[in-house]
């Protein structure tokens, strides 16, 4: 039979269940004979022999095989493969093996790679791959008729339903003990069914019946992992119908996860991830916990799932790092390289002097502060991934022991890069990301409408995976990461950016700003053609692809808010000659800015984008101040929508652990008092009600507790709005400081005048 791979998971003993979506729209459950395994290596033959004796008790069977133990190994060595019929026992087995000898006696591999992924790697399959499959006596026989490199592939028509559950709240906040009010199911075809009659039990069972009738492939929820599905499990139990809460295709009752989730630290922030609620045979997509779906829609989600060989359930919740890891695991597995349980590639020793030279980031040219006219922008395309790919930078290739005299050397540091392995694991994994992105970009240029949007979503999703490649080289939990490779990429970046700037200077351009992979250049009278010519010269000199983004009518590089003469990197905004705006690092781009502020700031920027020159823009400032005043008046007259005034902040601690009384901590406390269980990393939303109040709980109110009686602190909001508007106006006219804008508010109310 032929169809697309929809979902897969293990079943004990020794089975892999695969759901296939057939061409006629039906789904088929297939079972393969397959069991996951871990690998153990030891320097002592006796230790390995001892381990083999544990058969039957700890694992089903074992065999001696040869594999590359480490990515740096030049030959395979003998290791012991332990096959386990029950996937849940993989990690406990590894833990008990590790404990049975002093640490390091056994080296263990492939322990924490999800078995579903390993099944895909071993069979060269990927989710939504179109395959022909036949059931034989030994299990399934796969004939893949799809290509992971393809850009114009067919995605099967998947039936979807969005489940929304309304809680009959007894207090201000929804609690697990509150009954189910109503349940609505919105089909992908536009049909809506609403279950609000009868008892709570009837409504829950009604949901089960509706899901059975609609038989969706995709089930969308908002907050399904953290709240909706665990809440339904608990309500079914309260009504004595736990066993009948069946919404997967397997026929099993829905169960709450053993663990609610985990808090983790990423890029300076504490974040929280709830445990996944999987619906076997269907795909549960929780819109609030799916980064890839949020950033690039269903098409992007499918693309990441296919390219990185991650089951749809996993891909929808995966961080980009997890997606990238899966891609690296696939290539390692294909080459017979084992995946270490605990990464072992240590940083090579460096003296203090060497560390100072090596341990630096990408290059930055400090921006020239203020407003500039006629600046052109050139961006290197996927520079870091391209460096890894073209210069073969990978954990196992940088400073390898086999080719110390290699001709491929890291600039500044003179480190050797392996020549015997012409393509390391990281470059191999990165290749498909870089090349498919380029293919999609070309397809976007020759298509339009829905088709173009589809390619754009897929390219956007791959961009995120590409972004992760660099960070993962230096991440201590990455299986194929190593700081020396990370350092090597930065060293190449510095060389490429400085070389590009020198080419520009030779051609009479001035570097106005440069950061990692982008350059802003200026030359009096330079035309678009001059920039294009320069682009080609830089490409020829550096051998890396660079694109010309356009010439700005005006661009602003902002100073630090603390030191007015000191530039900040990454905060700029400008308008291209074709009217497009580019805004980075300022309030309108930040996720924690209240939407009302972002709207006002963008309205001002759009007005300024209409100006043809800096002079013209300066002439528009009065008009822009008018936009600010109109918004300020809306605030003061309490006409601003309260939903637009919401601040969003991530909790860095659990409520109660905060030492100082910030707005965030007071809001977290109020939510905790309402019975909401919050974890470090979860976001809270609030509206400022009385900023100056001595009582912390009066200063702000959680958005969930906002009702018609809530009155926001108009004065404080106007102050903050003045700061937001000053960011974009002050560079054009020095008297537009936040204080002066506030004076204008007073003046306007008293005298109906504008800023002098």
């Amino acid at each position, binding site marked *: 039979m032929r169809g697309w791979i929809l979902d897969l998971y293990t079943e004990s003993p020794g089975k892999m269940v695969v759901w296939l979506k057939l061409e006629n729209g039906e789904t088929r459950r297939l079972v393969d004979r397959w069991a996951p395994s871990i690998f153990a290596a030891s320097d002592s033959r006796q230790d390995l022999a001892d381990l083999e004796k544990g058969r039957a008790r700890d694992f089903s069977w074992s065999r001696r095989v040869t594999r590359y133990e480490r990515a740096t190994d030049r030959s395979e060595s003998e290791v012991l493969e332990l096959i386990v019929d029950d996937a849940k026992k993989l990690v406990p087995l590894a833990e008990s093996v590790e404990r049975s000898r002093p640490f390091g006696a056994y080296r263990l591999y492939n322990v924490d790679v999800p078995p579903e992924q390993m099944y895909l790697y071993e069979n060269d399959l990927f989710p939504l791959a179109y395959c022909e499959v036949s059931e034989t006596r030994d299990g399934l026989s796969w004939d893949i008729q799809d290509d992971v490199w393809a850009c114009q592939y067919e995605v099967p028509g998947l039936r979807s339903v969005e489940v929304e559950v309304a809680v009959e709240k007894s207090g201000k906040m929804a609690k697990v003990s509150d009954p189910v009010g109503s349940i609505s199911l919105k089909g992908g075809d536009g049909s809506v069914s609403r279950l609000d009659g009868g008892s709570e039990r009837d409504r829950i069972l009604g949901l089960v019946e509706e899901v059975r009738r609609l038989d969706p492939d995709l089930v969308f929820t908002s907050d399904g992992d953290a709240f909706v599905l665990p809440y339904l499990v608990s309500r079914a139990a309260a009504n004595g119908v736990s066993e009948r809460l069946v919404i997967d295709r397997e026929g099993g009752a829905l169960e709450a996860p053993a663990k609610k989730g985990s808090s983790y630290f990423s890029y300076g922030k504490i974040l929280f991830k709830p445990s996944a609620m999987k619906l076997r045979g269907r795909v549960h997509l929780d819109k609030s916990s799916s980064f890839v779906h949020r950033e690039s829609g269903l098409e992007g989600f499918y693309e990441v799932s296919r390219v990185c060989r991650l089951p749809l359930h996993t891909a929808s919740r995966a961080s980009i790092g997890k997606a990238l890891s899966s891609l690296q695991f696939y290539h390692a597995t294909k080459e017979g390289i084992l995946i270490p349980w605990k990464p072992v590639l240590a*940083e090579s020793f460096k003296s*203090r*002097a060497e*560390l*100072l*030279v090596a*341990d*630096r*980031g990408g*290059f*930055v*040219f*400090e921006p020239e502060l203020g407003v500039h006219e006629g600046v052109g922008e050139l961006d290197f395309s996927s520079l870091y991934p391209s460096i890894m790919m073209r210069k073969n930078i990978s954990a196992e290739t940088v400073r390898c022991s086999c080719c110390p005299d290699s001709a491929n050397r890291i600039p500044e540091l003179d480190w050797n890069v392996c020549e015997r392995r012409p393509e390391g694991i990281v470059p191999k994994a990165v290749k498909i990301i870089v090349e498919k992105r380029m293919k999609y970009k070309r397809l976007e240029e020759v298509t339009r409408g829905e088709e173009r949007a589809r390619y754009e979503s897929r390219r956007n999703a791959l961009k995120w995976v590409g972004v992760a490649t660099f960070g993962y080289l*230096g*991440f*201590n939990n990455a299986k194929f*990461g*190593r*700081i020396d490779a*990370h350092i090597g990429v930065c060293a190449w970046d*510095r060389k490429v950016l400085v070389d590009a700037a020198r080419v520009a200077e030779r051609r009479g351009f001035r570097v106005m700003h440069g950061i990692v992979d982008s350059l802003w250049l200026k030359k009096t009278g330079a035309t678009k053609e001059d920039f294009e010519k320069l682009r080609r010269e830089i490409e020829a000199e550096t051998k890396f692809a660079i694109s010309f983004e356009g010439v700005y009518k005006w661009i602003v590089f902002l100073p630090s808010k603390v*030191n007015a*003469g*000191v*530039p900040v990197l990454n905060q700029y905004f400008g308008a291209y000659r074709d009217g497009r705006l580019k805004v980075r690092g300022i309030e309108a781009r930040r996720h924690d800015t209240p939407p009302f502020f972002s709207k006002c700031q963008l309205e001002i920027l759009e007005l300024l984008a209409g100006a043809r020159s800096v002079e013209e823009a300066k002439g528009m400032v009065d008009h822009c101040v008018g936009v600010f005043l109109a918004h300020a008046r809306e605030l003061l007259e309490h006409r601003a929508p309260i939903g637009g005034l919401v601040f969003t902040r991530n909790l860095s601690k659990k409520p109660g652990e905060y030492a100082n009384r910030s707005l965030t901590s007071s809001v977290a406390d109020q939510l905790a008092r309402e019975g909401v269980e919050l974890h470090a990393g979860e976001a809270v939303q609030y509206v400022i009600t009385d900023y100056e109040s001595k009582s912390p709980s009066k200063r702000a109110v959680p958005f969930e507790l906002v009702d018609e009686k809530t009155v926001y602190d108009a004065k404080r909001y106007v102050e903050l709005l003045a700061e937001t508007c000053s960011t974009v106006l002050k560079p054009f006219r020095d008297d537009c400081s936040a204080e002066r804008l506030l004076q204008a508010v007073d003046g306007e109310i008293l005298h109906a005048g504008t800023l002098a």
Partner: protein
Amino acid sequence: MGRTTPSFRIAEAQEIEEWRRFRRALPKGDRAAFDEMLNAARLYASASSAAVRTSRFEGMAMAIAFHHYKALAGVSEE
């Protein structure tokens, strides 16, 4: 893993912080000029970083001297 040494921008901020007592000992009217001089170093952070000196103060001192040289040259040209 991650970075072991701080970026030059961070190291420079630390160095400036360490000169706080020097700053406090200055007459009030001199403090703004002192801040301005130290901030001039920040304008050349990339170059100081590229110079890779074991003492962060060396990169800063060169940046300040260079900034002043440029200013002087400008003035004498006028």
